[in-house]
């Protein structure tokens, strides 16, 4: 079964470290100061904290078994890797049509308006544990 990052909303304190580290890990410099101060285009992140009253949690792509985003994708940019189960995004192909955004049942895909393309979690394919899980101080994100 595919890995996916699960949030535990009772433990999330809305600190947004996951957002900061996700963006840094996906920046050019991988340096938190440089990434946020100097980099253009700005670094993007595949995880977002939602908050309403006392409830908060960090949501990213759940790499669904029935990946409706990949079924809906008109360009072939989103595909479900049959071996790893990861919903893989190829930005070379994305045309920014936003069909996947309508298809994602969790609202886990966002627009990169600077590039007119989408942003989504890649499950940190270059790391053993996704950076958001690794840095969450309260174990509110688990693999």
């Amino acid at each position, binding site marked *: 079964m595919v890995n996916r990052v699960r949030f535990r909303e009772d433990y999330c304190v809305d600190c947004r470290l996951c957002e900061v580290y996700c963006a840094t890990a996906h920046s050019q410099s991988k340096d938190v100061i440089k990434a946020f101060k100097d980099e253009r285009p700005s670094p993007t992140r595949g995880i977002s904290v939602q908050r309403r009253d006392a409830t908060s949690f960090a949501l990213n792509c759940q790499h669904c078994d029935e990946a*409706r985003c990949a*079924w809906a994708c*008109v360009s072939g940019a989103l595909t479900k890797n049959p071996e790893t189960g990861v919903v893989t995004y190829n930005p070379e192909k994305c*045309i920014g049509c*936003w069909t996947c955004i*309508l298809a994602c049942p969790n609202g886990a*895909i966002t627009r990169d308006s600077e590039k007119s393309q989408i942003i989504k979690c890649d499950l940190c394919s270059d790391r053993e544990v996704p950076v958001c899980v690794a840095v969450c101080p309260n174990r509110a994100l688990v693999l």
Partner: protein
Amino acid sequence: MARYKYLIVGNSAGGIGAVEAIREGDSQGSLALVSDEPYPAYSRPAISEFLMGERDFDDRMYFRAPDFYDRHKVERYLGARVTQLDLEGREVVLENGDRLGWERLLLATGGVPITPRMDGLELNGVHRFTTIDHARNIDAALKQGARRVVVVGGGLIGCSLTSALIQRGGVEVVMVELLDRALAAVMDATASAMVEARLRELEVRVVTGHSVAGILPASSDPSRVGAVTLSSGEEIPCDLVGVAVGVAPRLELVRETPIEVNRGIVVDRYMETTVPGVFACGDVAEAYDFIYDSHRVVAIWPNAYIGGRIAGLNMAGGHHEYDGCTAMNSFSYFDIALASAGLFDPGAEDSVQTDTVNENGVYKKVVLREGRLVGFLLQGDIDQAGVLFRLMRDRVPVVDFQDRLLEDGFGLVSLPRPLRDAWLGDGGMGYEGSLAGGLAAK
């Protein structure tokens, strides 16, 4: 004569969805695919990127990796047109006279551009815009100096063409729409007005409420386009006409066969036609629509892929019910982001609609019927459209939290916790979860 266990006619979203699904259920059964286009499957919506010069027709436009067909053991007949269906003999006849036999057949033949009846359609300079060859023809005409374009049709295809022309630059565009506003099929009057205003900013003239009555030859060269005349009598000089009115089901193969046809090919919830062993999907088929609770043609890419997927699973021996789709469209032209689905513009009195415009100009609207979401439209802030769509698809009673649907920051966090837990706990947003929700609601 070659005979296959599975034969697919059509090489776009539906056909590819079926190939992938067939191979999930049957890794070895012989499988062939026929298409009159001589190319690997490509992204039709990306022809707009091609025309604007953003990308070439290569890997970036192909829908799947170059080794897709080999990896899925698909025999390809590309550039081959099927001219006849022999249901008795279980064969198709190709244009060159060859026959291909099948045990299970999928008709994923898509649509043909609708061409309104008018004089002058045969003139040089009249183009369509649904295939890569169409885009290449327009590209060539522009390179030869076409500068004044009339786009016939103010829907998604017309906007896609207009957007590409604007991006390319150096072209004057007039868009002519028969209805009283552009994009009536994908947005309401408020949003249409926004798009039309934006088009005027971009110096596109938008003519609504009139049709193109005829295309006139150029005085310098009577074989070429010189102008169009509108139903109002106005004459608009131009050197290129893009007919972009939409598509109709491509039914030529099934006419005069026992396969039942309404507006499109009639299929059941398993995507099988009235002739056993013959399936259909995509723009040519009337698939189940969960909002209308009836079968109808909804010619959009995701429905074609999912329909093809269900057909493929069932052709390979499965018994999977199509859980239904409905109209859903996103709009991403002219720097406007918009998403709509279902009955976003109801006339009926039994529905209640609420809308809001926030200080950033974000326009949102939801439509409820009997306490359930049956349609919505988001403009500007569309990232959570999928959550609304799932509420609609699963027929979730939303009365208890309906005020939240339009709030800033709407998302999973706005849903009651038990619902959120149920959605995230089902191990992958699967059919079971959604179907159970749908049935429970009935």
